[in-house]
C-alpha cells in the first residue's frame, strides 16, 4: 500500500540537506560553485515554504507520512498554521543571512567556504525539520542536528569564541539530554512517540509521577536551549564572539524555534490546563520571563560592546516571547508568537548591522560610533528602524506585539507583568537610544574620541559595505515595518486559527 501525499513538506527539509551533502564533492571539483548552489537551495526551500503556507491557509493542516507508514508506527510531519508561519520565517531569515554571509565570512574562514556552507545548509534543514516534525524523538534528532551545526559555526569567531563555543556545547548537550530524558519518561508510561498519539494517551495519565517529572525536565531542557533567564549562561559569549553573520542567524532562529517547540508541546501535546493547574509551569515561566526582561535590559545598558549588548537584549526579548506563552490566554499567545516573528526580523537585522559596522570600520565599541550616520547612512537607518521596533514604537511590529502582550497580561489580571513590560521597554529605549545618539553625533568634537581598538576577528578591511550585505539588512528592516503595518494579516491568517483550544480566550 503506498499512499502518495504532495511532497512539499518533506522537500523543504531535504533540499538543503541533500545540497549540503553534495557541496563537499562539488567543492573538490570547483570551489566557486559552492556559494551559488547553496543560495539556490535556500531560495528553493523558501519558495516551497510559500507554496506550503498557501496550501495550509486554503485547506488547513497538512500531513506527511515518512515511508508511507501512518503514525504512531512511522514518523509523520504535521504542518498547521503555526508551523507554516515558522517555516516561512525560518527559510526567509536563513536565505537573507546566507546572501549576507558571503562577503563577511570570506575573511573569517578564508578557504573553508565548502564546509561552512555545508554546515550552514544543514542548520537550515535542521530548523525546518524541527518545526514540521510531529514525532517527539524525531524532534530530538533535528534538535541535535541544529545544535551541532551551531556549535561549529559559533567557534569560527576566533579569539575567545572557541571557549564560548565549548561552554555552548556543554550546556546545549545538557539541554538536549534533559529533552531525551523527558521523551524516555513519557515513553515509559505511554509507549508512543507520536505527538497526536501522546495527546490522546496523556490526559488519563496526568497524575502519574513519570509524566509530571518528564514534563518538568522537558521545560528545563527547552529553556536551556532557549536561554531563558536562569539558564542563559552560554548566550552572551556565543552571540558576541561568533562571526556577525552567524550571530544574526543563530539569534534570529534557534532560540525562536526552541520557544516554538515549548509552545507546541505545552499546548498541543499536553492540554493547557495541565500546565496551568496540575503543574504551575505557566506561572514559573511568566516570572522567569519577567526577570529575564528586566535583567537582560539592565545588563544590556551596562555593555559598551555592540554585539554583547545585542546578546543581552536577546535574553530580554526571549523573556517577552516566553511571557506570551506563560500568560496562557488568547491575547498573550498571540502577542508571544507575533513577538517571536518580530524579534527574529529585528535581532538578525541588528546583528547584520553590527557586522557591517565592523566590516567597514572595525569598531565594536558604541562610544566609537561617532559620525557613523554620515559615513554609513543606510546601515544606521536600518539600525534605527530595528531599534524603534525593539522599543515598540507604533509603525513597527514590536509595538503591536507588546500591545497584545499587555492586553494578555491585563486579561489575566497580572498587573505586575504589565508593569514589567513597560519598564523593560523603557530600559530598551535606554540602551538603544544611547547607540543612536552616538551614531548621529557629528564628528566635530573628536578630541574626546576614544582609541579605536581593532576588532579581534579581523573582520574589517575599510571598504564600504557591499550591496550583498546591505540589501539583506534593508529587506529585514523594511520587514520590521511591514510586520507592523500588516500584523492584522499575520494574526488573522496564521496565529488566530492556531490558538490552542484549551486557552481561555
Amino acid at each position, binding site marked *: 500500500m*503506498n*499512499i502518495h501525499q504532495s511532497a512539499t513538506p518533506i522537500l523543504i527539509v531535504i533540499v538543503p540537506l541533500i545540497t549540503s551533502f553534495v557541496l*563537499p*564533492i562539488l567543492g573538490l571539483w570547483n570551489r566557486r560553485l559552492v556559494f551559488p548552489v547553496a543560495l539556490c537551495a535556500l531560495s528553493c526551500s523558501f519558495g516551497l515554504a510559500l507554496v506550503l503556507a498557501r496550501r495550509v491557509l486554503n485547506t488547513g493542516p497538512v500531513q506527511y507520512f515518512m515511508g508511507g507508514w501512518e503514525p504512531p508506527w512511522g514518523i509523520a510531519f504535521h504542518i498547521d498554521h503555526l508551523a507554516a508561519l515558522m517555516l516561512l520565517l525560518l527559510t526567509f531569515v536563513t536565505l537573507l543571512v546566507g546572501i549576507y554571509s558571503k562577503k563577511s565570512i570570506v575573511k573569517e574562514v578564508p578557504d573553508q567556504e565548502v564546509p561552512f556552507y555545508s554546515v550552514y545548509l544543514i542548520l537550515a534543514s535542521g530548523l525546518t525539520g524541527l518545526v514540521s516534525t510531529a514525532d517527539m524523538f524525531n524532534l530530538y534528532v533535528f534538535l541535535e542536528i541544529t545544535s551541532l551545526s551551531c556549535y561549529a559555526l559559533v567557534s569560527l569567531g576566533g579569539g575567545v569564541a572557541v571557549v564560548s563555543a565549548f561552554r555552548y556545547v556543554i550546556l546545549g548537550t545538557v539541554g538536549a539530554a534533559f529533552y531525551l530524558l523527558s521523551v524516555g519518561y513519557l515513553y515509559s508510561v505511554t509507549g508512543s512517540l507520536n505527538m497526536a498519539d501522546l495527546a490522546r494517551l496523556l490526559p488519563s495519565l496526568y497524575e502519574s509521577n513519570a509524566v509530571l517529572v518528564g514534563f518538568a525536565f522537558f521545560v528545563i531542557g527547552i529553556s536551556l536551549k532557549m536561554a531563558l533567564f536562569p539558564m542563559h549562561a552560554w548566550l552572551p559569549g556565543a552571540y558576541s564572539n561568533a562571526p556577525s553573520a552567524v550571530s544574526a542567524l543563530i539569534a534570529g532562529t534557534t532560540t525562536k524555534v526552541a520557544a516554538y517547540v515549548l509552545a507546541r508541546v505545552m499546548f498541543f501535546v499536553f492540554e493547557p490546563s495541565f500546565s496551568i493547574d496540575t503543574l504551575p509551569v505557566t506561572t514559573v515561566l511568566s516570572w522567569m520571563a519577567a526577570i529575564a526582561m528586566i535583567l537582560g535590559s539592565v545588563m544590556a545598558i551596562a555593555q559598551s560592546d555592540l554585539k554583547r549588548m545585542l546578546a543581552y537584549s536577546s535574553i530580554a526579548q526571549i523573556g517577552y516571547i516566553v511571557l506570551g506563552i506563560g500568560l496562557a490566554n488568547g491575547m498573550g499567545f498571540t502577542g508571544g508568537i507575533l513577538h517571536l516573528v518580530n524579534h527574529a526580523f529585528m535581532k538578525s537585522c541588528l546583528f547584520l548591522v553590527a557586522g557591517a559596522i565592523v566590516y567597514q570600520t572595525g569598531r565594536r565599541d558604541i562610544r566609537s560610533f561617532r559620525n557613523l550616520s554620515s559615513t554609513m547612512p543606510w546601515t544606521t537607518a536600518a539600525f534605527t528602524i530595528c531599534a524603534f521596533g525593539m522599543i515598540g514604537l507604533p509603525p513597527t511590529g514590536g509595538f503591536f506585539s507588546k500591545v497584545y502582550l499587555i492586553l494578555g497580561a491585563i486579561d489575566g489580571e497580572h498587573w505586575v507583568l504589565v508593569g514589567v513590560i513597560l519598564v523593560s521597554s523603557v530600559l530598551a529605549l535606554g540602551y538603544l537610544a544611547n547607540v543612536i545618539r552616538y551614531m548621529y553625533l557629528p564628528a566635530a568634537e573628536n578630541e574626546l574620541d576614544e582609541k579605536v581598538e581593532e576588532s579581534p576577528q579581523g573582520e574589517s578591511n575599510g571598504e564600504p559595505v557591499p550591496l550583498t550585505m546591505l540589501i539583506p539588512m534593508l529587506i529585514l528592516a523594511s520587514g520590521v515595518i511591514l510586520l507592523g503595518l500588516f500584523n492584522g494579516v499575520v494574526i488573522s491568517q496564521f496565529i488566530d486559527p492556531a490558538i490552542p483550544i484549551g486557552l481561555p480566550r
Partner: protein
Amino acid sequence: MKDVATSTIVKVVCRRLVPFVQIFGLYVIMHGHSSPGGGFQGGVILASSFMLLVLSDGLETVQRRFSVAMVTIATSTGVLLYAGVGVLCLLLGANYLDYSVLPSAEPRSLGMLVIEVGVGITVTGALVSIFYDLLSFE
C-alpha cells in the same frame, strides 16, 4: 602519534590484523538484515581498522592509501546514497523513503540494504575524517 610505531610487535600485529578487522566490518554492514549489526556498527569497525593502520604505519602512508579527498567523498556519497533512495521513491510516486515502489521482488529488503551500505560508507568516512583532523592538527 604521527611517527611510526617503534616496537616491531605493534607494527607486525597491526598490519596482520587490519584485513580481518575490515572483513568483519564489511560482514557486519552487509548482515544487518539477519544478525545484530548494520550500517553504523559496521562503519565504526571499518573506521577502526584505518586507525589501527595509522598506529602501525603512521599517518602519511595511510593517507596515501585512503587520501583526505577520498575520505570526504566517502562521507558525502554514503549519505547521498541514503537520501537518493528516498528521492527515488518520491520519483516513483510514493512517499519519501517508501521502498515498496522499488523495482525488486522484495523491494523493502532491497531498500534497507542500500540504506545500510550508504550509512556504513558515511560513518567510515566521517570517523576517519575526524580522526585525520584530530591527528594532523598541530
